[in-house]
């Protein structure tokens, strides 16, 4: 191994064990650490101290943009750029313009939610030290991992390892950069 490893990784077998471990690791004051699970574990956000996700803002801005785009586009096209009388109807009516604008609200809002989620998670990221680790493949199967990065100010090669073992992890290993 050249230099410092990327992180120390501890494996757990049940969601209850990982929840207890996360609570403890957070209590120790670590900052650059994470928990990896095959599915979202109920109560983990609270145990890790993660605040409410900001994805909603991306979706909200997308939705407002979509509605404004729809209304302005229809007003511009049917009133300003190419006005044409059809059945004596008004050139622009918010009622007729509503259905397409409503759909665009949902369309842009959905893109906001998906792209906002990817942006906040810094995805796609196809190269990651953990993805090279053979044991870590179990994180998508049936195992639960606590990973503490070595650049965390609290990190110590021996004490952190001891802490993770004391939490009941049967398998602790270092992850290469």
């Amino acid at each position: 191994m050249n230099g410092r490893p990327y992180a120390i990784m501890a494996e757990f077998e049940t969601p209850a064990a990982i929840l207890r471990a996360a609570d403890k690791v957070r209590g120790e004051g670590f900052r650059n650490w994470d928990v990896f699970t095959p599915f979202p574990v109920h109560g983990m956000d609270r145990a890790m101290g993660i605040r409410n996700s900001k994805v909603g803002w991306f979706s909200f801005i997308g939705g407002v943009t979509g509605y404004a785009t729809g209304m302005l586009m229809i007003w511009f096209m049917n009133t300003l750029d190419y006005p044409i009388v059809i059945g004596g109807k008004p050139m622009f009516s918010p009622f007729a313009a509503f259905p397409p604008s409503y759909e665009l609200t949902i369309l842009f809002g959905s893109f906001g939610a998906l792209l906002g989620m990817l942006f906040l998670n810094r995805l796609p990221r196809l190269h990651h030290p953990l993805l090279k680790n053979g044991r870590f493949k179990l994180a998508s199967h049936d195992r639960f991992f606590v990973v503490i990065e070595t650049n965390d100010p609290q990190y110590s090669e021996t004490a952190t390892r001891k802490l993770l073992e004391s939490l009941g992890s049967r398998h602790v290993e270092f992850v290469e950069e």
Partner: protein
Amino acid sequence: MAEAAQIPTMSQPAPLVVHAPPAELEREPLVAGGHGIGWLSDTIAGVAEGSPKAWWKICFAISVTMMTVCFLCIAYLMSTGVGVWGLGHPVMWGFAIVNFVWWIGIGHAGTLISAILFLLRQKWRTSINRAAEAMTIFAVMCAGIFPLIHIGRIWYGYWLFPIPNSYSIWPQFRSPLMWDVFAVSTYFTVSVLFWYMGLIPDLAVMRDRAKTNVRKFGYGLFALGWTGSNRHWSNYEKAYLILAGLSTPLVLSVHSIVSLDFSVSQLPGWHTTIFPPYFVAGAVYSGFGMVLTLLVPLRRLLKLEEIITVRHIELMCKVTLLTGSIVGYAYVMEFFIAWYGGNPYEKFVFLHSRLADPFIIGPLYGIKPAPYWWAEWMMILCNVLVPQLFWFKKVRTSMIVVFMLSILVNVGMWFERFVIVVVSLHREFLPSNWGYYKPTWVDILQFLGTFGLFFTFFLLFIRYVPLIAIAEVKGVTPQANPHHPLGGAKMGGHHS
């Protein structure tokens, strides 16, 4: 303390004793067999990993052939013109619009399962949502073909979208047909986004299990580097909730807007305010019919009976019963308003053109049988009477009966679309404008061909993508619950 608990005193009331619920009130588990979460990965991902079975190859060959027939018919239509269809005055909307409305309605069950049942916290949806969403996407693809080709000059199809063109004219947004373009294309796009986002963690499962480099690269690319980090899950779950919240008004709006194509016009039989909710209920009804048609044989062929359990099938039958009853109520309401509303044209359409059969109603009122009386009665039989059989548990738990009834559901819904489109059009206000519509062989082969398109995509889907949402099913097992003994919770603790 033990004695104190047994002797109630004034200062210390007796502790509340909570008995375990009787066995008959216990709900059946969502995953039968008590399997762990690793088993779920192995079983579900295994479907997309092995080599294709003989039945898959046969079905795929048939589907691709039918799909080719569909495209050949489109080529014939494009090279010759819409005259190859059975259209003619006064029925200018024939099979194309019937099939469009039918296919798009089928899609609605997928979104209902993935979005509305998610918001209602119906955990059983996790076993079926992935396949149902895939069904939605492929059904909308089949639906989208028809309005595109029915415009006649398909190469001008882009005029439907607000794209600057050399004539510098714009689409006319005061028409419901224009709203439909936005509704359907948004519905397709958002369904794909929702489906793909749900797939990301499962593509990571496939990536981590992949043996060959091609699979590692392919699944790895589309998994976007998903690691299962809880900081990621936190954003992911929020985005999933928002997409479910956005898809719910979307799915209700799509078929409502499709129905406005009809109800905004002045034609008797179309011009009614009941259409939007009636179309949405019919759409969900037919969609659940299609989900049952697909999943009842698949769970058997792919040995997924422990994940898509009889309870899942029963619950879907109950939704079919509910929406079928709403559809039946809407039919009754339509006839009532046709009589109560006092509009002679409306009354004529419902009595003389729809209901008047040669055996009972026709002779009773002394009127000639309606030219399409069989379509109306097929629709009433399949959409009003057939779903009522789902009241019986024996029917709901017999897979072969459920399968046959689910096909009848969609036969009935196709006839409903036929009644609404063709039967309303074939007799206008003036008897000199009456006509009779008959489909040609191109109409029929094109419709059958879309099944080829649908099943080709669906078979490819079950072959390469996990057809059940692995991460979501894992999340609803007791093994995944940190407050359950199977999830590692300590017995006797405050969380046990």
